[in-house]
């Protein structure tokens, strides 16, 4: 038995540590620990609820829109504000752009180098690489001369001897299986994606002023004026610009990203059965298509139990509880109980080893993440959960179409999706579904302009004097990494209590009171490890979730006295 510690897990947002017992060439048990804490909810107490989105937005700079969206939805729910159609459309565009952008960066810049060997790419033959590239896509950058340029560039970089971010990696590891030409093609696309993401993100600059941390959110709507006849508003010029940017997005996702995933997957088919882990999936659904109180969602909500896609249950928020049995918090009524976020409490209390340390005590508390459970069960959230719910419900039909054709091309059954590679494939296909849907919302915005509906915000609820003295609200959102919820309690126009239950808490949380492992931990069980000192396979499975740790850690309802005690201990 070998005890493996990977800390830091790199190429993710935030600070994550994995400890694992490896036996007989595979992971027997694993523990996921988040090692950073800020206390954002505590900082929110006593503040103006209209400011909350900007604070929570800074929970994560990678998914830089998601906590803003969940926050304004929660506050709107509490105070009874109704965003007008323009705001709904603008938000849908911003959310879709965030998902697509994030998925591409995740695949190329955070995940790909677990599967693509940069050193092997240097021996790729440019002519063969060109043939490979042309066989999978009609993307124009595919000539032998182009790939030979990329190879020369990377070779020169390597020969200069300063490997920078590529140093000390696991190049040559036996788990790398792509031929040199596929490695070279993927490396070229790594560099292209760096350029592409900078252009595509301009959608966020147009609609949000800047990225990261867009600044156009408002409780009750959006701050971006809409008027076809005004220079300082979103106007017909903006519509043309958005159409262009969306078209470039569709182009890259459907001609580079998705074909790359489908070309790389056949070399790693065993990974369609590695890393299944937790068999339950949760999606809150998102992208409201109308302005009613209970709108139709473009990506539907649903709960899946035991991998059964034929029975998709509706989501009941009352069934969500959080446990702290293995988390560095205390519950006043005992750490074996679960608490619904509306009644949540979190008293941070670090009982881990004194730094510097070598090992965590995983029998006791070992993470800053709590363990959320749905009806007592752990849940996977994220693109795979959303695509499975879409597949099971048949909505949107485009999702089902894309999944079926990908499975056919790979000669795989739907059950192959419950895996490390399944999570990666679902993310790519979701990117295509969403980037294709963006045109529909650009058109809707243009129609609004034609109709001369310029409302962007519910001005009737802006003044806190119009709010109830005390109110509660919850806001839900599907972030790139999965189901996100914010809960807010407002009293006398100020935040009395705030809580977030976020995707990475669902996926990366530790064991609960019953000892059930969280999704990262469960999916690592059985993951092969050829060389424990180079745990490349562990990275593959963990990265397939797209970890985002700063999101996961938060604190609710801790009194100042309790914090003082933490400091003293």
């Amino acid at each position, binding site marked *: 038995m070998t005890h493996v510690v990977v800390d830091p897990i790199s190429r993710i947002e935030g600070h994550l540590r994995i400890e694992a017992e490896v036996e007989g060439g595979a992971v027997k048990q694993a523990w996921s620990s988040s090692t950073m*804490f*800020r206390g954002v909810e505590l900082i929110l107490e006593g503040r103006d609820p209209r400011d909350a989105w900007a604070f929570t937005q800074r929970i994560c700079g*990678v998914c830089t829109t998601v906590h803003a969206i969940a926050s304004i939805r929660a506050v709107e729910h509490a105070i009874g504000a109704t965003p007008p159609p323009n705001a709904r459309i603008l938000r849908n565009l911003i959310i879709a752009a965030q998902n697509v952008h994030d998925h591409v960066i995740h695949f190329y810049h955070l995940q790909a180098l677990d599967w693509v060997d940069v050193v092997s790419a240097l021996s790729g033959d440019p002519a063969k690489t060109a043939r490979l590239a042309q066989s999978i896509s009609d993307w124009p950058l595919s000539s032998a001369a182009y790939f030979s340029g990329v190879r020369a560039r990377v070779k020169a970089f390597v020969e200069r001897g300063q490997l920078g971010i590529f140093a*000390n990696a696991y190049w040559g590891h036996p788990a790398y299986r792509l031929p040199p030409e596929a490695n070279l093609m993927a490396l070229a696309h790594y*560099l292209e994606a760096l350029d592409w993401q*900078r252009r595509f993100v301009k959608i966020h600059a147009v609609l949000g002023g800047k990225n990261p941390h867009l600044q156009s959110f408002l409780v009750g709507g959006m701050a971006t004026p809409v008027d076809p006849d005004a220079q300082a508003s979103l106007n017909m010029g903006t519509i043309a610009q958005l159409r262009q940017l969306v078209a470039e997005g569709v182009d890259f996702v459907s001609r580079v990203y998705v074909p790359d995933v489908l070309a790389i997957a056949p070399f790693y088919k065993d990974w369609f059965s590695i890393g299944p882990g937790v068999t339950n999936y949760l999606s809150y659904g998102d992208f409201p298509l109308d302005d009613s109180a209970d709108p139709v969602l473009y990506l539907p909500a649903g709960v899946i139990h035991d991998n059964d896609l034929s029975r998709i249950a509706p989501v009941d928020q009352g069934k969500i509880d959080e446990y702290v049995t293995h988390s560095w918090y205390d519950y006043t009524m005992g750490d074996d109980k679960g608490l619904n976020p509306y009644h949540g409490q979190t008293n941070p209390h670090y009982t881990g080893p004194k730094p510097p340390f070598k090992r965590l005590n995983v029998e006791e508390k070992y993470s800053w993440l709590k363990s959320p459970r749905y009806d007592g069960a752990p849940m996977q959230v994220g693109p795979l959960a959303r695509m499975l719910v879409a597949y099971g419900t048949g909505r949107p039909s485009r999702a089902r179409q894309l999944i079926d054709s990908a499975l056919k091309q790979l000669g795989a059954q739907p059950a192959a999706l419950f895996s490390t590679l399944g999570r990666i494939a679902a993310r790519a296909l979701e990117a295509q579904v969403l980037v294709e849907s963006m045109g529909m919302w650009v058109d809707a915005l243009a129609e609004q302009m034609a109709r001369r509906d310029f409302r962007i915000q519910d001005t009737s609820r802006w003044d806190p004097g119009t709010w109830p003295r005390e109110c509660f609200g919850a806001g839900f959102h599907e972030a790139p990494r999965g189901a996100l919820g914010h809960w807010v309690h407002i009293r006398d126009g100020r935040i009395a209590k705030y809580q977030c239950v976020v995707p990475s808490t669902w996926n990366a949380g530790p064991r609960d009171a019953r000892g059930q492992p969280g999704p990262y931990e469960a999916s690592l069980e059985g993951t092969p490890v050829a060389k424990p000192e180079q745990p490349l396979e562990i990275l593959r499975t963990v990265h397939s979730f797209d970890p985002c740790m700063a999101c996961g850690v938060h604190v609710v309802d801790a009194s100042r006295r309790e914090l003082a005690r933490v400091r003293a201990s």
Partner: protein
Amino acid sequence: MAQTRLMQDLERQGISRRDFLAFCASMATLLGLPKAAAGAIAKAIETDKRPILVWLEFQDCAGNTESFLRSGHPTVAELLLDTLSLNYHETLMVAAGDQAESALEDTVAKHKGEYVAIVEGAIPGDIDSGFCTIGGRSALDIAREVCGSAAATVAVGTCATFGGLPAAHPNPTRALSVADAVPGVKNLINMSACPANAENIAALIVYYLTIKRWPPLDQYRRPLFAYGESIHDGCERRAHFDSGQFVEAWGDEAHRHGYCLYQMGCKGPATSQNCPNVQWNGHTNWPIGCGHPCIGCAEPNFWDVMTPFYQRLPDVEGIDSSKWLDPVGLGLTGVVAAGAVAHGVGEVMRYRRGHRPPPDDGTRTSGKPREPDASDHEENPK
């Protein structure tokens, strides 16, 4: 030889030598250098000797990392990545765990006094608190070692420069800025804002490569080329401010026509940064350009002194409003009023920040919470 390869790369990506020189000229302008400096900049970028950088992330959100990836001059920014040797960066580096940590250790040991440390995120002030550990080591420990042996340290983002979000009241983790966490750190440059603008980070690197020294700084150790003027002075809506034309409701006619956002809470008069000029994401837009007020994200303690964000400046909590002239109420001309506004905030901030005492004597200032008021107690029954 280096030049040939560089130009090949650029040409392959549709960038001509002319475009490249134009970029260098725009960098020169941004940095306030004579036009003739463009040649020197081009030469510096093309050189084969790449300075070593290590990028540390602590209590952060990776927003500055993402920002860094978004430079508005894509290929040239990519070139800047090639121009540097980024030896450690948790979000971008391929190696993980021990291999990642040894890359950092090697750099610190072999290049002591030569490398530049970039820090993103605040640092919990207590070594044993467990609020931020990497590889089992506390952030404070790592920061002191790595920044302590660096040729220079660049704090990017308001968390690293001033404590930022984690240090906002009541600062649950006793989060510190780099200046407070590593007292006496050598050659500290603060690139505040939430996040710092990619163009300014790139400009700082070019400055260093070209002139071989660090730029002149303001009282908060921020480069004057990026933080030398207020948002208000460069704002495209300034004429509306001066003529008293204000937005009064979201989406009203004034809002649609780009009137001044002062009444909606704009903190531009109290904030220094070059957003109006360089803008964001390849000069595409900026917050005021999209209709939302400035929230003052480049200033010390902005989460406490600039909030509530939608209250107009003289009423911002934590500021003695008796010091303030009300430019609207008194009908003053904008020029006079803005001067007073900027001055007033400067006063408050100097008072709040003071000089920098060592971090654990209880008088630390950069993350100093706002004073709790009566309502804070009412709302926390426990």
